[in-house]
């Protein structure tokens, strides 16, 4: 800055105007201008989001495809990854630790694989949710769209990922002697409820992660603790035999456990309703509705603040 001779004064635009003397808010009001980047009302927000449904879907599919596009086996990994996951858990918990606890092999293996896939659905939705805003700041700072599109889109991506896993699951379940029956239709409402639950959680952690990106470092530990207490590899009622009723029920109403048990009940012949806590559908619906509605409102409340680094 060698040149300091410039007077530095701000030359006001020389145009004469009848609006001379109006303050900025008055001027804005007179011409019907609105505050840029202001948060829309909740109803408006839902409407805007609905208008972006094609973007949300396209974005989730794009992310899903992009994931394996550099791999030689390509989209085959969509199926191979869950299969390998199931194999690892089977090796450790089925062969080495023998966590089956009285379940026959024909029940335990489908039980374990269902648990792994269903829990992974929730787990990866949350992990993607944490980074939904903080990992896409470029997008948030460049384009206009309701920000909830991002966490919803990531949850949707995980749902599509799960559908690939489900085909693997069907093969395994049938391979161990549980054939398709009417109860398989229950898969649809279960998936819907779990998707709502996951989306709600993704919205919540997306807002928290936008403010505190450190959450992405912390989250794997929380999720692992959650996984080991949810009965992914063991049956809660059998493993906790002898503990108080209250304690077992407390573990069983955990939403992750609820969705896993419902899915096992729907798919596996030898896994009867005696394994489910009472009012299981009511609890499943409760978690889905409360988390989704609560998460949505919680996320919307900070809408105008996303994008600040």
């Amino acid at each position, binding site marked *: 800055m*060698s*040149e300091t001779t*410039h007077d*530095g004064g*701000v*030359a*006001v*635009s*020389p*145009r*004469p*105007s*009848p*609006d001379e003397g109006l*303050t*900025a*808010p008055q*001027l*804005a009001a007179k*011409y*019907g*201008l*609105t*505050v*840029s*980047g*202001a948060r829309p009302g909740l109803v408006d927000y839902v409407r805007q989001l609905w*208008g*972006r449904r*094609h*973007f949300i879907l*396209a*974005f989730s599919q*794009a*992310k899903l*495809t*992009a994931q394996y*596009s*550099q791999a030689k086996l390509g989209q085959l990994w969509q199926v191979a990854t869950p299969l390998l996951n199931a194999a690892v858990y089977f090796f450790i918990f089925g062969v080495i630790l023998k966590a089956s606890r009285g379940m026959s092999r024909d029940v335990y293996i489908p039980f374990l694989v269902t648990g792994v896939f269903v829990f992974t659905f929730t787990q990866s939705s949350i992990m993607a949710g944490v980074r939904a805003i903080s990992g*896409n700041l*470029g*997008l*948030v*700072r*460049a*384009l*206009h*769209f309701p920000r909830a599109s991002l966490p919803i889109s990531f949850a949707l991506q995980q749902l599509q990922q799960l559908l690939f896993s489900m085909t693997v699951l069907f093969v395994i379940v049938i391979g161990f002697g549980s054939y398709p029956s009417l109860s398989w239709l229950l898969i649809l409402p279960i998936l819907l409820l779990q998707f709502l639950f996951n989306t709600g959680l993704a919205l919540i952690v997306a807002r928290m992660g936008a403010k505190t*990106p450190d959450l992405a470092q912390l989250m794997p530990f929380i999720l692992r603790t959650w996984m080991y207490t949810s009965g992914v590899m063991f049956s809660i009622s059998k493993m906790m035999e002898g503990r108080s009723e209250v304690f077992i029920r407390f573990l069983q109403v955990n939403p992750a456990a609820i969705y896993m048990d419902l899915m096992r009940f729907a798919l596996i012949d030898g896994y009867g309703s005696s394994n489910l806590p009472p009012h299981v559908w009511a609890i499943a619906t409760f978690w889905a509705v409360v988390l989704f509605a609560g998460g949505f409102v919680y996320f919307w409340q900070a809408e*105008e*603040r996303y*994008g*600040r*680094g």
Partner: protein
Amino acid sequence: MAEPDTEQNPVDQTPEALIPTVVADELHIVYRVHGAKTGKGSATAALSRIVKRGEERGVRKVHAVRGVSFVAYRGEAVGLIGSNGSGKSTLLRAIAGLLPAESGRVYTNGQPSLLGVNAALMNDLTGERNVILGGLAMGMSREQVRERYQEIVDFSGINEKGDFITLPMRTYSSGMAARLRFSIAAAKDHDVLMIDEALATGDRKFQVRSEQRIRELRKSAGTVFLVSHNNKSIRDTCDRVLWLERGELRMDGPTEEVLKEYEKFTGK
């Protein structure tokens, strides 16, 4: 008024008919940068910052825009100039409502949009899917994207040398990718349009074509903001210039007047 080559610009309005489209009122923008606090960067230092009670630990504030106020009117093309890091792009984003203001406000007519979709595109996807994704990301409907698809591909000229649109974008040369990005971004019409140095992309032939497209966009847009380091493109396009320096509005006036001072300042 100073522009002979753009009859389409509705400058024939009398001063009484000046309609403001963008009003910035004492706008301040502050970036918060994590993990860039001056001092030791070790883990123990980070820990001690957490333990010690301070107002905001480990966060450095960068005051990028400091109290900028102006009014832009319908039909105006406003240039933004200033040295690197003077806050031009930040100001544009704040006008678009993409960066939350620390204090002060921006009032706008409708939804201002930045010209650019780079952030929404994915290198691992084919050009074809990126056209669709980019269009949807800018808020076009599925039908609009379908209608404009061929137009976008033709404009980009990606397929002039073979069927490249079905290849992943990571296989494109940087020039080809830039052309496709511009073509997607320029496919939509905007109320208040903001262009951030997007003029010079691709080869000479494409530059001419893109400048032509920007003139068309200007015609349909109510107000245009242009950030550029190229004084010639500012002179060609803008009738008013805002000069930012260190986040402050240093000068605001007709293009020639401001550019003369700016060129004196930069020692050109």
